[in-house]
């Protein structure tokens, strides 16, 4: 139980995917202009993360590793599974929420190549987590991703009305903001250590 708590804290705050590990930066800048779409994107990524880890972990453990294929086939199998889940999310979202589907636009299919998801799959294997720990890690990583996206969108909604020098308007000031947020996140560094 204690171990799981450490994983959650570590994935959300200490090793936040976006702000301390710099994974998955594309949607971080692309979809963080409005709070609603940021939340939608966060949950889409969290869903894909958890579901793909749920499938990837047993495939790796029971099929790839015993046959000795895990060294070179991992990446292709992982991407295949992730792409399938992204496709599912797209189909479901198109049916259930047309507005969110339009707001996410091209960033929804781009989850396929989001390195936060592929990265977490490899991190899980690297750290030798068991099945439950991996799922908790994936979920917490998704929550951390959502948290960073929501914080960023909150700041950017304010920045829209703020008086920013013309050269820094929109994206440049967002980059500077991201740098400052990342610095703030480094305050958590070293609080917990994963085994």
């Amino acid at each position, binding site marked *: 139980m204690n171990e799981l708590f450490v994983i959650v804290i570590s994935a959300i705050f200490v090793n936040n995917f976006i702000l301390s590990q710099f994974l998955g930066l594309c949607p971080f800048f692309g979809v963080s202009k409005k709070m609603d779409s940021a939340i939608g994107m966060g949950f889409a990524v969290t869903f894909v993360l958890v579901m793909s880890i749920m499938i990837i972990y047993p*495939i790796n453990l029971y*099929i*790839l590793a015993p*046959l*000795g*294929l895990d060294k*070179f*086939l991992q990446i*292709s*199998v992982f991407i*295949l*599974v992730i792409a*399938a889940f992204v*496709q*599912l999310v797209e*189909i*479901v979202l*198109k*049916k*259930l929420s047309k507005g969110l589907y339009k707001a996410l*636009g*091209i960033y929804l299919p781009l989850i396929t190549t989001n390195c936060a998801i592929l990265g977490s799959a490899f991190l899980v294997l690297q750290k030798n987590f068991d099945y439950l720990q991996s799922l908790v890690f994936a979920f917490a990583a998704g929550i951390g991703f959502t948290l960073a996206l929501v914080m960023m969108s909150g700041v950017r909604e304010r920045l829209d009305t703020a008086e920013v020098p013309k050269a820094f308007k929109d994206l440049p000031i967002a980059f500077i903001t991201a740098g400052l947020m990342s610095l703030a996140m480094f305050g958590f560094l070293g609080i917990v250590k994963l085994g």
Partner: protein
Amino acid sequence: MTILYSTLIMLIISVFLGIMIAIFAKVFHVQLDPRIEKIQHALPGYNCGACGYPGCAGYADAIVEDKVPHSKCTPGGADVAAKILAILKESAGEAETA
């Protein structure tokens, strides 16, 4: 042996995922306006973005859903604009008679 196993595993996983996606696509099928597809065929398909939408599919969607002007396709010119107008008019007539 390694090559055989890797090929087989990839094949099995892809077929399984493909079937899963096919089922989901059936369950969550969205009824689209048939005009969108017709307009998309009428457009040149360069995906140049001159109309201000992401690709020809995006523009076709916008014409039907958001009532955007039909003459924004620069590479298509007047020719394509006339075709799109014909599609829009034709289906409007159908809707009135039906």
